[in-house]
């Protein structure tokens, strides 16, 4: 396989900012930042700008603490810190969604304290089990479209939007193909490498990223897919994000092979595609309602639990590793019942307490290794 191309993509995932600054200098290029989750990137792309999903920073918190209470989750804190201290000058504007209390109120604080030329809210429905949510999302997506057009002074035509959708669909398909290969041949790429590829796709111009991924995928040979000495232990990763990134390294060291997940920076980003028919805005909205569950968004019944069990069954997983961000209330309310459910179904589940800026992972490493060993003994 072409490791040079792989390394180029991984370098974007590990630190996208120097390359993005160079990219920006190359022309009239604007970058619009969004926090998780579900801002329609295709729309920002069709407006001629680069959509960038802000995933915080693991650098020290210097300013955000003066704006936020102590129990703000570390993801929100580090998102704000990134734009106040480290990379704020890179962004031309922001589209911030609302999913819970933190993101709702963070947006006001962000708007008042970060520098920007463009600032917009994207008020996603927080219930998706009734028809009203669909019309609301369509109205809100149309409002975002008009807002972007007003900022750029250019119309987002249907043609442009379909073209952007095409790029994003292609990127998703490539990543799903790699995921399938990983599930069948867990040794060919590490967990860290694969999930870094997803990260890089959230950060780099889609057309170029697709080309690089295409080159990488085309270079994969049969010998790359050979079993290298043990299938390892197949696990499902559950949660919202995988941070700090070293957690993936720990999974790799412990021979825990992620064969499925429900993360916003994992499967939920790469599935499904926008269906290419009809009105493109409606198609984008339709895609939203086919996405996997997301803990702050209410859906019918116990969809999160059912989805997790399906992932375990479909991927022949032996257990679940749940990444719990400290002070994330959605997860806090879900966890006790989720653990009960999984235990009732006989599915081993291990909860990793995590947060951004965590520097001491020894305890986490030991516990993940112990979990892996317990699965290996079954």
């Amino acid at each position: 396989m072409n490791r040079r191309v792989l390394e180029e993509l991984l370098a974007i995932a590990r630190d996208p900012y120097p390359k993005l600054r160079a990219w920006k200098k190359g022309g009239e290029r604007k970058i619009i930042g969004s926090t998780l989750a579900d801002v329609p990137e295709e729309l920002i792309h069709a407006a001629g700008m680069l959509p960038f999903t802000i995933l915080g920073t693991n650098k020290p918190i210097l300013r955000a603490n003066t704006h936020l209470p102590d129990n703000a989750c570390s993801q929100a804190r580090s998102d704000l810190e990134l734009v106040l201290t480290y990379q704020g000058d890179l962004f031309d504007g922001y589209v911030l969604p609302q999913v819970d209390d933190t993101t709702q109120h963070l947006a006001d604080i962000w708007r008042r304290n970060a520098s920007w030329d463009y600032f917009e809210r994207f008020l996603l429905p927080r219930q998706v089990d009734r028809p009203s949510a669909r019309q609301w999302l369509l109205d809100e997506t149309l409002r975002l479209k008009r807002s972007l057009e007003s900022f750029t002074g250019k119309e987002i035509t249907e043609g442009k939007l379909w073209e952007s959708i095409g790029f994003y669909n292609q990127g998703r398909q490539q990543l799903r193909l790699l995921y399938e290969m990983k599930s069948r041949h867990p040794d060919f790429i590490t967990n860290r490498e694969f999930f870094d590829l997803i990260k890089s796709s959230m950060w780099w111009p889609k057309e170029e990223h697709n080309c690089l991924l295409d080159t990488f995928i085309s270079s994969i040979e049969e010998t790359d897919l050979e079993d290298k000495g043990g299938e390892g232990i197949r696990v499902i990763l559950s949660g919202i994000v995988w941070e700090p990134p070293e957690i993936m390294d720990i999974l790799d060291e412990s021979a825990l092979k992620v064969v499925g997940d429900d993360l916003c920076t994992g499967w939920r980003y790469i599935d499904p595609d926008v269906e290419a028919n009809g009105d493109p805005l409606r198609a984008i909205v339709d895609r939203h309602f086919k996405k996997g569950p997301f803990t702050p968004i209410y859906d019918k019944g116990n969809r999160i639990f059912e989805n997790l069990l399906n992932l375990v069954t479909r991927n022949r997983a032996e257990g679940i590793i749940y990444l719990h961000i400290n002070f994330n209330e959605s997860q806090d309310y879900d966890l006790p019942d989720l653990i009960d459910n999984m235990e009732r179904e006989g599915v081993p589940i291990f909860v990793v307490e995590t947060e951004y800026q965590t520097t001491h992972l020894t305890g986490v490493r030991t516990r993940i290794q112990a979990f892996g060993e317990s699965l290996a003994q079954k």
Partner: protein
Amino acid sequence: MGEQAAEKPKAKEVMKRLTKDYYGGALRAHDEGKFVAYTTAVSPVELFYAHDIIPIYPENHAVMCLTGRMMPRLSLEIEKRGYTSHLCAYARSDLGYRALQESPIGGIPDPDFLLACNAQCFTLTKWFQVLSRRYGVPVFVFDTPQYIRKDEARKNIIQYVEHQLAEMIKALEELTGRKFDHDRLREVLGYSAEASKLYKEFLDLASIKPSPISIFDALIHMAITVYLRGTKEAVDYYRLLIEEIKEEKVSKGIGVIPNERFRLYWENLPIWFKFRDHFDFLAAHNAVILTSLYTHAWSYDFDVSNPIRTLAENYTSVFSNVELEERAERALTLFRQYSLNGNIMFLNRSCKAVTFGVFELKDMLTKETGIPALVFESDMGDPRFYSEVQIRTRLEAYLETLDRMGVG
């Protein structure tokens, strides 16, 4: 001899009777073939009253547990089950009650339906999802997007919320097997409108100098509009209450404290287990907390000519669901209207929705009023996170600061 005039009842006694009847009725509901719905304190409860469904507020019951200082025991029980101590004190108290079956009023009935409106906060929707799983009953998440100050967004938001009201009516019809009566809704809304107006009139008594009421009176008397809004009883209650206060205090120039000097604003929910203590402590320093955006959250302004529209507008635009600048403007209106000269801002670890923007609000309010703010952290219901000495010291120091500034 003539007939003796019947003695007018005291508002306190009426409140006791109304509360007893309300909870008594709720506990009998299932035996009487009625449905019980759990709902959040800011929610279109008028639909329930119009459809003869008893609304119960787990938050309200939780407050009773918190004022009864039951929190540590209730929270420890559910912490054993995996819930963290930094979750909302109301939720912890409620889940702890269900685990231990301990309640200051003998408990509340189990629900047939759950309505979770996220205008107050999103955490309510997650708490109610836990209850939905526990009781196997549906939860209707009434989604009110943040009421941002953009015309197009506001128009769409109201349409979305109206659409959801129609969905909720349908859900209630399916639950009960009965057709919804929109005429009855108009009647109920008429009572809500009148009660809300009277409630606001009651709160505004605090603008008088000296004020006949404090925020602690507001917190006590707020209960009736929270859980009996939509009933004639609520209207009659606030009329009686206002009359009583005017007669006993306003007409005689009697203030709730004897030497009122510092008229304070309070940001956030109250510290439920300390409010008597806080009142006494502050009164000893000639200070009284008069108001908060929190107590004003129930001063709705309903337009009964368009019930669905007015329900959508009022329940979406509550203070916790607007942008920070609008929240500050509403607070500043209270500063002016109530002649406030001090500002206590409580960082409530139990309530991110209201606490998150406190630092920004502090800057905005201080800049506009010139009044410094005291900011301190604690928990609205959990004494384990309340530091008596520290908070008293800070309150004293703050009042000394105001004194040195020549305030009051």
